[in-house]
């Protein structure tokens, strides 16, 4: 989805450093990720070298530099989910989809992200697919779920 970076930029004060993070956040919200062009354009608008903009944006966990898959998987990495076995769930997903945290499958179907606590500790371990929550999943359920999604698409 092409977005107009200049339009988003024009909502913020030119050359203001405080605008940097909100600006990047808004671009990511619209486009789903930060492209190289976006980083360069924002740098130019805020008055910072693009290397610095890239440095700051990689510092924070929130920014991503690859487009999301059609189905974006979020695995909770909170303490409770860890105790309840989120790690084996994550390994299972990695095995099934052949991607790791932060990557996208080759067909662009799935992307995987480990996130901070989603706050549903009583239902741990949980994963979210495009914002829809799934709880108490076994390895078998996962394979089935991915099959269903693949067929639906």
């Amino acid at each position, binding site marked *: 989805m092409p977005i107009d970076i200049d339009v988003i930029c024009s909502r913020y004060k030119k050359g*203001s*450093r*405080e*605008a*940097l*993070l*909100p600006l*990047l*956040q808004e671009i990511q919200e619209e486009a789903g990720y930060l492209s190289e062009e976006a980083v360069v354009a924002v740098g130019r608008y*805020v008055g910072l070298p693009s290397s610095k903009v890239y*440095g*700051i944006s990689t*510092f*924070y*966990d*929130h*920014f991503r530099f690859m487009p999301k898959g059609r189905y974006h998987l979020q695995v909770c*990495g*909170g*303490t*409770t989910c*860890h*105790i309840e076995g989120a790690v*084996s769930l994550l390994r299972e997903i990695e095995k099934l989809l052949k991607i790791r945290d932060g990557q996208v499958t080759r067909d662009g179907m799935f992307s995987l992200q480990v*996130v*901070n*606590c*989603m*706050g*549903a*500790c*009583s*239902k*741990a371990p*949980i994963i979210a697919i495009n914002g829809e*929550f799934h*709880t108490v999943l076994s*390895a078998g359920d996962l394979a089935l779920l991915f099959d269903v999604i693949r067929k639906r698409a």
Partner: protein
Amino acid sequence: MSDREFLISEILTAKAPDHGQAALKRLAEIRRERIKRPVIYVGTGSCGIVAGADKTLQATRNYLSEKNIDAETVEVGCIGLCSAEPLLDVQLPGKSRISFRNIDESLVEPVLDDIFNGIVPQDYVLGQFFNPLHQAYQGVDDIGQLPFFKHQHRIVLANCGKIDPQNIADYIARGGYQTYLKCLSNYTAEKVCDIIDESGLRGRGGGGYPTGRKWKTAHNTVSDQKYLVCNAAESDPGAFMDRAVIEGDPHALLEGIAIAAYAIGATKTYIYIMADYQQAIRHLRTAIAQMKEYGLLGYNIFKSGIDLQINVVVSPGAFVCGEETALINSIQGKRAMPMPKPPHPAVEGLFRKPTVINNVETLSNVTYILKNGPQAFNSIGTATSKGTKVFAVTGKSAVTGLIEVEMGTTLKNLVFKIAGGIKDEKQFKALQIGGPSGSCVPEQQLSLPVDYESLWEAGAIMGSGGIVVMDENTCMVDMVKFFMDFLQQESCGKCIPCREGTRRIHEILENITRRPPSETGHEVLERFKGIMQLEGLSEVIRDTSLCGLGQTAPNPLVSAMKWFRDEFEEHIFDRRCKAGVCKELRVFYIEVDKCTGCVACLRKCPTNAIVGQPRQPHFIIEDKCIGCGICYDVCKFVAITIK
């Protein structure tokens, strides 16, 4: 007269708050104490949504439109009882509000059918809210008398889950914003600082610095512009107190912010909140817009000459933002890296102006103190720690959720009386208090009271309020490894002890939870060398790091080694994980009488560690086994067990 006009003229700006019968009646109507049609409340906080509250809400609306029932549905925040989500409350005219637990979409119809026909579906009842205006249900417990609520003392969470968080009228009708306006008209800024100082309120973010003193420092610093920042960047994995407060009762926080801003003389305030908290951000923005509508924000508020602006800053997320100076850098569009103190932010902070940074929970206490006086707050708690503390109790406890207790309550009461002990009748092992940089507390220390000093003396910290309960099936080494992994990822990288040290600790722990390919030479030497250095390394990190993150980073390791040394030794010397969590240390064996000799495991074993003839029991050669667990997963006869 609209609700807004009524509330502004009769409540907020009324000179003498002597309400006539009509006004009282109207207030009760706004509070939904007097209702003409049934009201159905659904708990749709983030935790509720995960449990399926949005589907419950949809099902409820469908039910009402299908049956042609004229009723109001209200979305409320989290009442704190996460394991009972989704919660559905029903209030019929003249009757008390009754609460049902674990109502998923399929249960909506039977439960609503029953209650509308005057039958109480006993299987799902949680309790009822007693109110003298209402007729109570027979044989239904008072919700406040449930063990979970009975031993709590709710100040910050008082309204969470009860009021409509997206409606300012509901808050004002319960006495909201009157305290703020009382401060503006009756108290000087110094007086407000004094009251807070006298109350003994201390920062709830972890450090426990006296809030009143912080405010006074900022108040006494001369500057043309001052700032107040509310720190809502709660990124401790497993803590969600601040989110619940913002989602469930945003105006309580906003009123606290308004009062704090007045006390220190700040006209611009920021709420720095995690980007993941989408619902909380939405509720905050709605609440701020409503404040503007009621004239509680902007210039010359209610002709007092005071200006106030509240901005929401969405944090791109980093654990280190809990450190004040790092947070300031982040708002200024820089990397969230801490800076050496002094100068303290209260003297020179955001944009080099005096800045007070307070936690959500701290600010949510402010209104209570000014409304009821410092003594009311002072009398709760222990000698040095006043008031209450909210904890997010998660993990293996029977009940998980938000618990607000008086300072001085013992951890034992917290876990066993309120959270109902350990689920599935397992044995309690330890609890982790204070998040990833907190400490573990074993059973023999459970009599510790919740109090900054007592916890500090015992080597633990209060932290922001996350408590993770662990049972016998949790491996302490694995737990520490998890926290160290988190900390080494979140270390900002500015100072070397924290950046390199946390990484090294994590590596050493990885080494001892891994089965080495060989037992000879360099590998073994490295392994033991690392272990010998763990304690020394922890000391160096603690003593030489720049900010709180580094200084507290070795806490989980040091405390776990103190109380569970045997478990570490078992991992190191015997290469055994009693809890069976450390995957690579697991040893599997086959129960002879259960094995049918189907050869499923034998075919799948990647190292040919399983031998046997078809239709004869197999067995595992321990030396060859790498503990991958594939045989365990493929066995259809549950013949494979972990030793």
